[in-house]
């Protein structure tokens, strides 16, 4: 067997790549905001763009500490506008229906950037169609890849099954205290007031 000198350049390259692979492996064990979901479409509307007026049925009204509007003091969005913020897919075990589901929708963080939410904003005051109200701390949707889900398992969610939109938290990839966070999965979302 040929003797291998420890200081030969071939060995150095091998060792270095081994090190890099190890580091990469360590790094990838913790889920990051980017590794949790699958990108479906790229954002068409980007932060800073002017948000056009709605053409279809308005399903979401946004008010409060926002930097832009498309109607008087509010942003009114229809389905297509929301989707133009860039869609992602996320597979998670639905904590209510108790089964694995793929939710599709834009990332809340993208929507917040689009709405040019003020830096001192602290919470999302969400109101649902049946007057259900919940305040979600803004850090939760900035820290985690929370999805403003519009589709469930390839179908748009009708009102009769939690539609038009529901907040989906990455339960499969991060640990959450379900007693608290289940309340944040607001569904039948009608409006969000940034406070």
């Amino acid at each position, binding site marked *: 067997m040929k003797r291998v000198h420890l200081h030969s350049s071939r060995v150095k390259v091998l060792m270095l790549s081994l090190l890099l692979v190890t580091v990469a492996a360590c790094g990838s064990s913790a889920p990051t905001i980017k590794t949790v979901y699958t990108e479906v479409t790229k954002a068409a509307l980007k932060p800073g763009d002017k948000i056009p007026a709605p053409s279809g049925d308005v399903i979401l009204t946004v008010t409060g500490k926002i930097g832009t509007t498309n109607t008087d003091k509010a942003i009114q969005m229809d389905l297509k506008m929301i989707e133009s913020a860039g869609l992602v897919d996320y597979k998670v075990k639905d904590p*209510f*229906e*108790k089964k694995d589901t793929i939710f599709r929708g834009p990332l809340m963080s993208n929507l917040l950037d689009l709405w040019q939410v003020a830096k001192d904003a602290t919470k999302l005051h969400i109101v649902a*169609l*049946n007057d259900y109200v919940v305040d979600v701390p803004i850090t939760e949707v900035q820290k985690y890849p929370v999805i403003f889900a519009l589709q469930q398992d390839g179908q748009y969610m*009708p*009102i*009769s*099954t*939690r539609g038009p939109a529901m907040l989906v938290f990455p339960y499969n990839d991060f640990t959450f205290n379900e007693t608290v966070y289940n309340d944040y999965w607001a569904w*039948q979302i009608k409006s969000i007031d940034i406070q």
Partner: protein
Amino acid sequence: MATSEPTLNAAPGVDAPLAQPAPRPQFWRRLIFVSPQITILSVVAAVLLVALIVLAGVVVAQMEASATVLTFNDTNRVFVQLQRETLRLIALVAQPIESFKAQDIEVQSDLVESRIGVMNFPDAQASLPPQIQQRAQQLQTQWAALKLEIEAWKADPASSTLRDTLRKDLTDFEFAANDTEVNYTRINTLAITDFAQLNQKQLLSFAVGAVVLVLFMFVVAISIYRVNQQRREVEAVRETNRLKDEFVAVVSHELRTPLNAIIGFLGIMKMKGELNERDRHMVERAQVNATRLLSLINDILDISKIEAGKFEFVVTAVPLRKLVARWQSQMDVLAKQKGLDFQVHIDDGLPESIYMDEEAVTKISTNLLSNAFKFTEQGAVSLAVKPGNPDEWLITVTDTGIGIPEDARSHIFESFRQVDGSTRRAYGGTGLGLSIVQRLCRAMGGDVQVESTLGKGSTFTVRFPLKASSQAPAMKAA
């Protein structure tokens, strides 16, 4: 104190070993049957333990039931919200025709439907009691029919018939939802109260049971401890006795050797013929005392051997008449010395030879006869050998001596006991003779009895089991 009492082994010429002491009962028998109190206590304790385990199981089941109770609030909200959305729908339907907006109706009826959907979520379904699940099913069916009605009315909103029917049916539906909610609340309230009561009762009985059980266990433990202690004490006493007997045997042996030397040399001195009258007398006195000392040591040795269960019986077929003749000739001298009449009688009904330990039986009769002669100053001593009840033969020694008072008759057989201190002083003796007689008799399966009249005389009767040579089983090949 009981010694082991072996029966005579009928194989002649072979050492008859004494029966082994009964083997210690098996562990389980000792544990369970050591005393009836402990058995009863243990059974009661076991029953209590079982009851407690059952109770604990029931408590655990109740606690699981309580988990259902705790999810009540969440699930109940479903019915409350269903009611609320239905009421809103009714309000929309009730609006004047001018305000009719199909989309609003659609949205609101979808909201009602979403509440039915939530009713079917796994968590809700799991926490509903069966009656409520049934009602939920009914609500679903009702709603399916209502949806068709709504579609029909939306197509023809002006129709007051359709609208009124729809309103009425929606109202019924709302009542049904309300009813379900009320029932669910009632069931849950009952469950909570039941649970609380049961819980209290169970905890109390659990606590009481636990305390009682602990007490019983305590008592059982103490009883077992005491019994064990008793047993240990008995063992200790047995061990002490055994050591004592061993000691006596060893020491007696050591005492005999020098004594035999003394007796021997004294005998030689007497025989030599060089002694004058006075010296001769002194040697004789010394001889008598040494001999007496030796016989005392022998008696002590015998007793300790018998008590330790180490006396080896040698059973042979002994010709009876020859044996008795020997005893007679031994005692004749003493009879003549004291001027007493000595009668010997053997019953014809007795066989030629009888199986016995010749040495032991001789010891017995010699002891009895010596006593008879010792305590009789005038009259006669008679020895009779005759058959007794079936399978027995008797030796009776009768004297016309001083007799034995009634209260002394029980303790004359005890070691070192004589009638009272005065007899020892007057008559000498060690007080071991009758003790040896009794122990030997019992060891051979027989016994000794005494009848006596103070001042008139006594009769000692010894009885042995009779094993004549003709009854013997086949001898072992020598």
